[in-house]
């Protein structure tokens, strides 16, 4: 048995008081944990939605006519441009300070091949990132399953009379049309999308890229900051941002975060007051007990240790329970806010530790004044009868 045994016995055998203390702290911890987690979930949700809008950063070689025409119709001189973008630039992009804000990096390499004496623009893409970026594509047929499979735009399909299942020969390679992209109203309608490695190989330009599209979500900094960081890494490229309607969504989430911060502070304040009055009342009840500790030779700091340890242990419990409860709440709030039927539970060890730390800090701060006052109590109270 040691001093802290007193703390543990008191917690265990004065269950009502312990429960109320833990309850007061759970209130604060669960509220904060759930609001933080809802904010995070909304952020992730926003990131997904961003992809729906496509890329918001365009990286093109400097002085490349193609970049000026992307989005237009004329791609005639594409192949004659000397590109200054290379495959290795992808790694450079992925090494910027805010790389965690980069959601998708989609490289492209364009080349015009002749099919039945008609020039056709081929876009070499990495299908995985391209499909992630262009979620609005509606494909009849299949997504490309291997290097030889391609997607064809509606206009190109009509012009060349090529449909899913057809094959086409470029140089000595036999490509298959796996799917048809329904009309998008963009330049995508006039192209054939094929594997970027294959196109590079067929043209003998294994490292070359025509442009890179990036979708990024930078929450705490403007998109311009990511543009700046990327430009720094790629001095030979032009990096420009494409404004998206995402901004309005961002400010909604931003408002929610402010609201959440406001509510959290209020709840923490209430919780601090509850803990304070609880500890205060509980210690007033124990004045005679504390008088006895003094009479048997405990110092002020011995008594402070007993009281603080008791609160710290209760707070750790409250942190754990508050976190679990907060996670539960956050999933309910999130599905309510996003009107989705699915409940997402995210367990995060750092959040758990943060919750426990927060609970201990709030618990100790709230009870420090009554605890110190008790430790300095006049011990002669133990001599008063009753």
């Amino acid at each position, binding site marked *: 048995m040691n001093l802290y045994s007193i703390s543990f016995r008191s917690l265990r055998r004065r269950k009502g008081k312990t429960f109320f203390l833990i309850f007061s702290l759970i209130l604060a911890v669960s509220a904060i944990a759930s609001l933080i987690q809802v904010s995070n979930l909304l952020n992730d949700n926003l990131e997904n939605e961003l992809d729906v809008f496509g890329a918001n950063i365009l990286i093109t070689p400097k002085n490349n006519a193609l970049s000026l025409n992307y989005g237009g119709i004329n791609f005639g001189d594409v192949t004659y441009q000397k590109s200054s973008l290379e495959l290795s630039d992808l790694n450079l992009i992925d090494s910027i300070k805010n790389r965690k804000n980069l959601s998708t990096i989609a490289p492209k390499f364009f080349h015009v091949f002749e099919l039945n004496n008609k020039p056709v623009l081929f876009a070499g893409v990495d299908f995985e990132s391209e499909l992630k970026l262009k979620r609005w594509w509606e494909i009849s047929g299949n997504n490309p399953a291997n290097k030889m499979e391609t997607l064809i735009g509606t206009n190109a399909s009509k012009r060349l009379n090529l449909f899913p299942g057809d094959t086409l020969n470029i140089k000595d390679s036999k490509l298959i049309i796996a799917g048809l992209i329904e009309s998008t109203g963009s330049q995508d309608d006039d192209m054939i999308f094929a594997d970027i490695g294959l196109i590079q190989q067929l043209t003998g330009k294994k490292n070359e890229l025509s442009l890179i599209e990036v979708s990024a979500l930078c929450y705490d900094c403007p998109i311009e900051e990511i543009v700046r960081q990327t430009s720094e890494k790629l001095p030979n490229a032009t990096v420009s941002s494409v404004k998206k309607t995402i901004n309005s969504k961002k400010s909604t989430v931003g408002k929610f975060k402010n609201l959440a911060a406001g509510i959290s502070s209020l709840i923490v304040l209430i919780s601090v007051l509850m803990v304070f009055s609880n500890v205060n009342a509980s210690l007033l009840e124990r004045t005679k007990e504390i008088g006895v500790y003094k009479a048997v030779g405990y110092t002020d700091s011995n008594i402070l240790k007993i009281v603080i340890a008791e609160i710290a242990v209760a707070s750790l419990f409250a942190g754990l329970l508050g976190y679990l409860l907060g996670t539960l709440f956050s999933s309910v709030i999130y599905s309510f806010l996003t009107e989705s039927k699915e409940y997402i539970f995210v367990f995060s060890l750092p959040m758990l530790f943060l919750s426990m730390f927060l609970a201990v800090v709030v618990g100790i701060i709230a009870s420090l004044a009554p605890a110190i006052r008790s430790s300095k109590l006049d011990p002669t109270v133990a*001599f008063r009868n009753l």
Partner: protein
Amino acid sequence: MEKSFIQINNLIKYFESTGEIVYAVADVSFTVDKGDFVTVMGHSGSGKSTLLTMLGGLSRPSSGKIIVDEFDIYSLSNKQLSAFRREYVGFVFQSFQLISYLTVKENILVPLLTKEMTDNEQNEKAAEVLEWVKLSDKMNRLTHELSGGEQQRVAIARALVNDPPIILADEPTGNLDATTGNQIVDVLKDLNNAGKTIIIVTHNEDYRFISDYSIDLLDGKLVSERENNLIVINEN
């Protein structure tokens, strides 16, 4: 002449409440020798408890000195005074003041918890004092399961566990019936025979005659001090 174990010199303690000054102890001096059994008597409000808390190093006098074993105890720092209480004094209170959420044994161990001690040493100490107060069989009970007399014996065991030379008891029989009270005083008398210096506040005139020495307070002043053994001897 050899110095007394406890010397109380011109002890004064006053309280100020609502602008009025109340002298709880008004210029009291006496000495107690090692091994004495002393009774302190006087009506309610005469300053007995106040005197006892000052003797035990629990409240600083307004003026005057208390010297125990050659230490002028109120010249000590608060921390040293805590150590003095732990090593020199065991307190017994009228309403027992046991800790409700601790068992009998845990209550008894409370004074040892600020010392470096192994579980074994603690257990031995507890067993020893429980034997003194004859409660070995109830050591794992919570204290509210015990009778008043038993609870006061637990309190005595707690006062003994640090093996202090002085036991201070403030009306230890005040909440007990006569028979049970006598049993408690018997335990204290046994401790006195074993060498402890005992100072007990009581209203019971009977206990005056088992004490070596008794002092009477009236409104904070010492009105008489008697060597009771002499009286007893004279009567014989």
